[in-house]
């Protein structure tokens, strides 16, 4: 249950950020997840529903943006997107490419909140 511990960290982190916005409710949480991060979106969504119950995040939407895997191809001298996770090769020249530039991300990008009437943001 890797996804549950990931979602718990997301909830903790969002709660921390909410301290600056007293009374605010969360509408949306956006994640950036690399295709190589070894997490399954369905499972994240399932855990999110459970982990946000009875918190200011309850009922909010979890948006997961998947980032493709990019590697640096030495012969081509540029970063390229691989076509399959089963083959770390440059799709342009076909050479093996070991230098990973994107794909392992596991980040909270942003949150959308609804502030209480009288609250003033920092």
């Amino acid at each position, binding site marked *: 249950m890797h996804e549950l511990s990931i979602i718990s*960290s*997301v909830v903790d982190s969002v709660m921390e*950020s909410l301290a600056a916005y007293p009374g605010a409710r969360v509408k949306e949480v956006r994640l950036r997840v690399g295709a190589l991060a*070894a997490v399954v979106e369905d499972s994240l969504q399932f855990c999110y529903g459970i982990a946000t119950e009875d918190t200011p995040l309850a009922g909010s939407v979890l948006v997961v943006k998947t980032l493709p895997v990019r590697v640096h191809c030495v012969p081509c001298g540029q970063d390229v997107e691989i076509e399959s996770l089963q083959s770390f090769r440059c799709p342009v020249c076909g050479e093996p*490419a070991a230098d990973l530039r994107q794909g392992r991300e596991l980040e909270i990008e*942003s949150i959308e*909140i*609804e502030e*209480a009437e009288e609250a003033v943001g920092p």
Partner: protein
Amino acid sequence: MTTRIVELRRGILKKNDELAAGLRQRFTAAGVLVVNLVSSPGTGKTALLERTLRDLRTRGLRVAALVGDLETDNDARRLAASGAPVRQINTHGICHLEAEMVGKHLEGWELGGLDYLFIENVGNLVCPSSYDLGERIRVVLLSVTEGEDKPLKYPTMFNSADAAVITKMDIAEPCGFDRALALKNINEIRPGIRVFETSAKTGSGMEEWLDYLVEERGLER
């Protein structure tokens, strides 16, 4: 009601990453080479380590091990038979090790007195790949009985490894192990990775693996 977007741009495993970075600094300062061993359950992590600890000690090197286990202390007892200091990390059901668990279990150990610290992760090819433990080298193990396509099924783990060991080579033939295919698959996921082929039963391939560890330790200084 006003709606507002708050940019966070924060790593979800930031806490673990920070603790791991702290550990890595300590390890580097102490001059101890830390190796994290990952594989499916039963691939032979403990068996490889039993020999590795014994053989490195025979070469006069100072070694220690931390071993993660869901419930038992069987692996820790097997490893302690080598005479090396060994500590068990009981994860109580958590399917991977985290930097915090490693940090806690180092208390009281004089890292400067060690040449190598091996960490046997929990048998699992999925989440240990996401948790940095502060290691210098991550080694993924694949046994001849578990299918040559393991690297293709678990690209995250194989891609994040610094070296790979094919274990149980003594039974490769009866298992119909396709060595060329396994090597091709490993290289497809992690081009150029060093691959060792060992048997903890017969000791075959151990020299090359140990030489690699000694070489890497040389780079540390």
